[in-house]
């Protein structure tokens, strides 16, 4: 119990230190730009594919489930709300945890093992400014965009399945989707994206920076980072949903 609290405290201090570097120069624009591309652009294929198939499967499930009480017509509305409020941000968050958190943790842990972090210090460069802050900032800014892309492609997946397999009219499907979504659905989705992006990157950086020596240390850091980020994203999703939609 004490050990868990101590670990939580170390993580909180690490997070606080990272945020504090936002206000203190220098800012490494090149590292930030690279992180934007790595986290944002290169995540688009996995985000798109995940969202597309999930949207399609969701449409099939709602159609067959809704048929039990003659509610097949609600497919466009439920796909839209399901993707935007919940599945879009959560699935994109988990995909980013798998792809980005693991990559950040492994890269930084390897840098630690091979003394590259020490080398940064001897070159008068603060590792948190050069490695942590650009990644955390990039993930926090890019995730809402990725979630927006995921939501859109997910709805498109549902639209394709519904119109091509389930016999829905294309124009009325789109109209139902647009009419049903509210601004709060979209803002909550994007806000969740930003929080999940922050969690994914900060957890990866923390586990990388605190990894033990050797190949086993890198492996443990990577595994621990993905597990912790996934659990934290799901927990944060619950609390954010509670905050946005509890009546």
């Amino acid at each position, binding site marked *: 119990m004490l050990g868990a609290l101590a670990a939580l405290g170390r993580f909180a201090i690490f997070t606080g230190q990272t945020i504090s570097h936002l206000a203190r120069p220098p800012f490494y624009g090149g590292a930030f730009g690279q992180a934007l591309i790595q986290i944002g652009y290169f995540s688009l294929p996995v985000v798109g594919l995940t969202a597309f198939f999930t949207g399609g499967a969701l449409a099939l499930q709602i159609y067959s489930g809704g048929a039990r009480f003659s509610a097949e017509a609600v497919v466009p509305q439920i796909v839209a709300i399901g993707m935007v409020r919940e599945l879009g941000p959560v699935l994109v968050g988990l995909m980013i945890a798998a792809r980005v958190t693991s990559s950040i943790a492994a890269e930084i842990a390897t840098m630690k093992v091979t003394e590259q972090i020490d080398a940064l210090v001897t*070159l008068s460069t603060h590792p948190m400014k050069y490695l942590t802050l650009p990644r955390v900032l990039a993930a926090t800014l890019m995730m809402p965009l990725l979630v927006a892309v995921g939501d859109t492609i997910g709805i498109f997946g549902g639209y394709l399945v519904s119109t091509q397999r389930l016999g829905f009219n294309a124009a009325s499907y789109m109209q139902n989707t647009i009419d049903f979504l509210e601004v709060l659905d979209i803002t909550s989705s994007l806000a969740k994206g930003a929080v999940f992006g922050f969690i994914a990157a900060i957890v990866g950086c923390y586990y990388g920076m605190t990894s033990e020596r050797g190949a086993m240390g890198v492996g443990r850091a990577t595994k621990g980072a993905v597990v912790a980020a996934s659990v934290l994203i799901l927990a944060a999703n619950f609390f954010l949903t509670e905050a946005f939609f509890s009546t």
Partner: protein
Amino acid sequence: MITLSGIHKTFEGNPVLRGVDLTVGRGESMVIIGGSGSGKSVLIKCILGLLTPDIGEITIDGAAMTPKSQTGFLDRFGMLFQGGALFDSLPVWQNVAFRLLRGPQKAQAREIAVAKLAQVGLKADIADRYPSELSGGMQKRVGLARAIAADPEVIFFDEPTTGLDPIMAGVINDLIRNVVTELGVTAITITHDMTSVDTIADKVAMLHDGKIRWTGAKSAMETADDPYLTQFIAGTTDGPIKARW
């Protein structure tokens, strides 16, 4: 001048440094020798500020090394790491010019990097390669070029010949000696390679059991009557130093 006074450092109850006192004069090449696990790397990391001593003081030209003053001192230091510690994600020239790219010499950074590579015997055509495309010896040379890129006043060398064949080790030793002589810098090298000691050192200090056991001019080593030093130089198992299994 770098002065270490009563440096102690303990890790999880295991004392590694037990009161190290050492002075390195300006422009001097000091080589610290000692067996594996004797605390040489810990000592050099304490001087660089990568580790904070539990007790004791490190001063550089009379000013104390503290976490606050660390950055100012690091601007005057260069460091060659045992494994090179080159940044995998950057090409060779950006590794060499890493500090320059973040300072007023940014515009000339590549030109200076290529000149420093030439100084360590590397051709300009490797400037755009990545560290993983280089041999161990070339990586050491790039690390040396990076250490001297910003014309430091003090250079640290951590086991500079470890993992290299004898010929490449000789090349690196000669390069270090030339760099130290040409630039007139203060150099602190840690090694257990006596060939490196012969080539690089002006003065030698032997670290044993967390303390400086012997220190003096390189020329005085052969005639020193310290049994620990004598055994270390001879490389025998008979003597006061017990092999660690």
